[in-house]
């Protein structure tokens, strides 16, 4: 099926829409204000700006923060839990951690109140033996009580279900038969993996999101349909793949990091088109700097994250490392005389001092303004008329300059130096610390502020070049359109390789494949190809942390051919020595989990359709003074989107577009490539 594809990313301030007409390859973008509390208004408004007739649309893909926000703001449903006798408090007891190492303060309330966590007699042992068959009468009674207590969704949380889900499956069938809606989650469906707290938490948070997220998605779908849309509606998952809207309603927890994941997918595609398979992305927002690494075209995935203290989500998600250094992060000098950036932030409201909305402490953005890097007359985002440079200077002078005996310009430079150093630290964390050499990578800033700090990232983290995408502000919406359809499965095996039952492993692998392919078959989206991947989490016996061991598995059509023990051992030895540099001669190899991925590869569009003209005039629209190092430079300012392919701009220069400012420092040079990206390098490198 071919037609118009639409990607929609709903952010805190703007809703971005990316439209691709597959019949002629034409692409266009739109940015409209996000509507609150019902985001569907902005959603439809944004699509309407680009497409007059919704019936022409084949696919709408949505990157959503509805789940993330409901978790962060604790605005999920009232839910209940039915657990194994003796284990109702696991959710509240966590892994016996605490919010902060030092100070011992703070408490924790789980998303299910204790009166809504009910126990039933049942018990499965670690080897899968059922010691106590589940008491279904008790299950029915518990479900009834939870309904009476006003619960809208329920989670079934039994022990050791990774080894045998029978008790839990009987219980969930019983509850589904009597529960008035579809909001019944059970831990063996969500995550058949050993570790009860992580599994219970993920399952409970799924139930917590189900009414809210499925309600929101159905409202959107209805609105699209009533506008004539008859195509397929899909949602971006935290793993960077898309899923059908019905899957998303069953497993809303998979959307926990939907929005940022789509951005990383697009960044990877843009870089790959431009000829770079290794990139580090940096998304600078108001309160944070989010970094992610793509090596050989593959995003790094992390197995779990904590949305907040005690709110653990264990589903594969694109690994995004966040530090509290954004444009709104506050610069302050501590009692020991050290300059610090963040973690406190003025965010976007009240925002930097220069916004004049009530904050009087200097931020990173204020330093950029005082140094002339941001145009005070044309603030990006279009909300404000102009920025108050004088107020920003005074705040920097008072809070940073005076305590450190620096003038306001030196103080502003100092703020940027410390902020840049923290941002570069995050880049070192995802690259050097994981064994990746930054010299082999390109830096890709996106979001509003990242492109102001490009030069510093190159210098401090030792990255040779940066790629600024043509539309850094709509990367996530573009990512929606190009993301593959991807499903991840996990099953705990818990066996020594020497005593592995290869047939059991094969059955699990085949079940994952069957389920994954069935979902792809049911989708109406077009796939170029289908891809199966298998990994085992393995370790030596006695070792705690596992290594991911990729298995090269043969298939016969859609039938999986079982890997042999020898093949598994060989694959483990390779992965282990790659990770730790050596093998243990007497070690006994153990398999903990099977992880399978079934992906439908979606067709990509030609990025050149977004490229600028190949000829045109290159002329600065203005000149302004910008401070670099220890002096002011007359700096040419260009309208970035008008620059033709092949343009070369020597630093110092500033390239402006409606939602982004690109800074080219005096020692750098920028080139517009065939796709309209700006490639920034050292002058001598060029």
């Amino acid at each position, binding site marked *: 099926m071919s037609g118009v594809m639409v990607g929609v990313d709903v952010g805190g301030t703007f809703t971005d829409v990316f439209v691709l007409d597959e019949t002629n390859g034409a692409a266009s973008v739109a940015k409209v204000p996000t509507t609150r509390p019902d985001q569907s208004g902005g959603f439809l408004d944004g699509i309407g700006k680009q497409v007059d007739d919704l019936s022409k649309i084949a696919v709408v893909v949505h990157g959503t923060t509805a789940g993330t926000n409901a978790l962060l703001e604790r605005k999920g449903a009232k839910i209940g839990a039915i657990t194994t006798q003796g284990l109702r*408090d696991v959710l509240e007891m966590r892994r016996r*951690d*605490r919010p902060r190492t030092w100070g011992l303060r*703070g408490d*924790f309330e789980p998303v299910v109140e204790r009166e809504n966590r009910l126990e039933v007699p049942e018990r499965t042992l670690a080897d899968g033996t059922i010691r106590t068959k589940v008491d279904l009468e008790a299950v029915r009674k518990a479900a009834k009580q939870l309904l009476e207590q006003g619960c809208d969704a329920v989670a079934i949380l039994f022990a050791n279900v990774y080894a045998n889900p029978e008790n839990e499956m009987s219980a969930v069938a019983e509850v589904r038969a009597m529960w008035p809606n579809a909001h019944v989650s059970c831990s063996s469906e969500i995550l058949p993996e050993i*570790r009860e707290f992580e599994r219970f938490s993920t399952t409970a948070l799924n139930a917590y999101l189900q009414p809210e997220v499925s309600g929101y998605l159905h409202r959107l779908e209805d609105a699209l349909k009533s506008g004539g849309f008859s195509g397929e509606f899909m949602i971006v998952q935290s793993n960077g793949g898309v899923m059908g809207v019905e899957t998303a309603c069953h497993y809303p927890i998979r959307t926990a990091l939907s929005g940022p994941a789509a951005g990383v997918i697009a960044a990877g595609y843009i870089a790959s088109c431009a000829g770079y398979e290794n990139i580090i992305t940096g998304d600078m927002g108001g309160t944070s700097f989010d970094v992610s690494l793509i090596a050989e075209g593959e995003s790094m995935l992390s197995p779990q994250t904590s949305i907040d203290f005690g709110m653990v989500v264990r589903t594969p998600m694109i690994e995004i490392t966040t530090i509290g250094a954004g444009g709104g992060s506050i610069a302050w000098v501590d009692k*020991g005389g050290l300059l610090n950036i963040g973690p406190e932030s003025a965010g976007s409201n009240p925002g930097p001092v220069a916004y004049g909305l009530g904050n009087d402490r200097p931020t990173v953005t204020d330093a950029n303004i005082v140094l002339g890097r941001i145009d005070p007359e044309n603030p990006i985002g279009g909300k404000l008329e102009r920025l108050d440079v004088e107020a920003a200077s005074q705040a920097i002078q008072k809070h940073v300059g005076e305590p450190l005996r620096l003038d306001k310009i030196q103080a502003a430079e100092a703020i940027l130096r*410390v902020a840049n150093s923290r941002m570069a630290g995050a880049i070192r964390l995802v690259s050097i610390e994981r064994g990746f050499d930054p010299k082999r990578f390109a830096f890709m800033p996106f979001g509003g502020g990242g492109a102001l700090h490009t030069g510093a990232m190159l210098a401090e983290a030792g990255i040779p070049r940066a790629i600024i995408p043509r539309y850094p502000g709509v990367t996530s919406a573009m990512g929606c359109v190009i993301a593959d359809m991807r499903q991840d499965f996990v099953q705990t095996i818990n066996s020594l390789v020497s005593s592995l039952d290869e047939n059991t492993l094969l059955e699990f692998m085949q079940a994952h494949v069957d389920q994954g392919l069935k979902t792809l078959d049911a989708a109406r989206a077009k796939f170029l190809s289908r891809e199966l991947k298998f990994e085992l989490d393995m370790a*030596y016996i006695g070792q705690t942390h596992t290594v991911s061991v990729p298995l090269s598995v043969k298939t016969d059509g859609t039938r999986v051919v079982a890997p042999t023990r020898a093949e598994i051992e060989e694959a483990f030895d390779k992965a282990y020595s790659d990770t730790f540099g050596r093998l*243990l001669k007497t070690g006994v190899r153990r398999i903990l989990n099977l992880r399978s991925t079934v992906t439908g590869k979606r067709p990509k569009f030609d990025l050149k359709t977004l490229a600028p003209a190949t000829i045109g005039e290159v002329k600065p629209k203005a000149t302004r003074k910008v401070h670099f190092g220890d002096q002011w430079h007359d700096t040419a300012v260009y309208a970035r989107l008008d620059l033709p392919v092949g343009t070369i701009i020597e630093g110092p220069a500033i390239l402006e577009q409606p939602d982004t400012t690109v800074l080219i420092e005096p020692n750098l040079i920028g080139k517009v490539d065939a796709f309209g990206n700006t490639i920034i390098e050292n002058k001598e490198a060029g």
Partner: protein
Amino acid sequence: MSDIDQITLSVLAGRMEQIADEMDATLFRAAFNPIIAEAHDASHGIYHAETGDTLVQGKSGLPIFVGVMSFAVKAVIEKAALDGGIQDGDIYIFNDAHIGGTHLSDMRLVRPYFRDGELFCYLASVGHWHDVGGAVPGNYNPGATEVFQEAFILPPVKLARAGVVNQDIIDILLRNTRLPQSAMGDLNGQLGALDLGIKRMDELLDDYGAQTVDSALVALGHRAEKLMRSELDNLPDGRWEAEDFLDNDGIVDEPLSIKVALEIKGNEMILDFTGSAPQCAGPVNIALPTTVATAYVAIKHIFPMLPANAGVMRPINVIVPEGSLLSAEFPAPTGGYTETILRMIDVVFCAFAKVSPEKVVANAYGTINALSIAGKKSDGKPWVMFSFYGGGHGGSIETDGLNHGNAPISTATIPPMEILEAAYPVMFKQWALRPDSAGAGSHRGGMGAVYEIEVLEKNGAEAFLFGERGRFAPKGIAGGEDAAMNVFSFEQDEGWEHPPLASKMRGISLKQGQSVRLETPGGGGYGAASDRDPSLIAKDVKNELVSEAAADGTYGTAWREYQS
């Protein structure tokens, strides 16, 4: 020396902290034993070339090590002088707690970092090994009267000379543990962390030059000192005392006093532990390095923003009487040091609460509850399930205490029940919060826990417990009330029994189907119970965290109007 500009200093502070953090992460990933890999009972840092003082320490390691590691480095500096000096590529290893603090389970590796042929600083790695020999698997021997019964003792010796590892030392180590593979895995991980630290220091000095980095290290010490002094300056002068007790030492059933007098004078502070019990027969003694390090941990909990740098301790004088259990002499046993230092933190908090209650939290559950259950499987293979268990944290001016937290000296998480059940022949019948275990207050303490564990193994098993707070409850502050005490019980043919020494016992024989039950203390309350919001009391009752009777008894009956 110290004329480094403030901005470079800010940048370097972050870079060096990142080096120590990365060493932590390297060991956590590579370590075999869950006490390091999962519970993060380890630490890494950068230490002064001449004094051994802590310059920078990783954020993710165990809090108690932040203060104690400098003693390990000092011990190596002294030993190296006797050995005829130290050279590039040398690595010292030891576990002697009387020299390096804490207990024999903590294996310390110290390695000099040379730059252009000159000693620049030391890097060190410490990690809690799963087993280091001795009478009891896992090394918490409540019956030890000499350190020799706790584990084998390794004084500071050279594991490597000029980059060449001495296999003899490794052979001795591996012959002295019940779990040689685990020990080898952990040792490899620690060596890897040190290798990485050296590499990162090289890169840092390449970028900034030795002179600048050295100046930064000096300046960071001054800054830490200045921060501490400014905090003390803001507090009133005076002297405040507090006292609490350990149940017993595991040998003689008599309480042991831990006493502190806290004195603030201008921008200096004295922590005087004079009056604390004399050195005792059992393993709750601690060596002087541990005592000083613990004072630091307590202070850092009160002022969490202070950096992990020895400069913090310059304005603080810790007085420890000779002959007391806080300055135990070799070969006094120290295996249960965790209990004593937890009590030290409790008394420092209680004394500080008299100066400035809003800066402290009420006492946490105050015992590590090291419980091991061990035996032989039907195929003859030995198994040891060893873990620490959690309890409630104290209330503070901000919130109620945290339910089921980890100990203030640690950031350790508990292994998942399912991992334990998969590895050992046991089943947890209960893994739950313990109602009515928290101290009442306007902000009550957090709840302790109940763990009930049944032995599934046909051959039965043996249990060992090292715990505290069975006779003296965790205290409330600012008018808050005390929490419930620790209760341990075990099932025998005649029914449930309790250890004669409350929370310490070894060699408890359990048959298949019999269980042990550990009920841990909650945290103390903050502020008067009468000031608690009655709707919160009603909520606790509704959630069965506080029984109706207990609510009526401690808070009065006003809450009943808020019952829904």
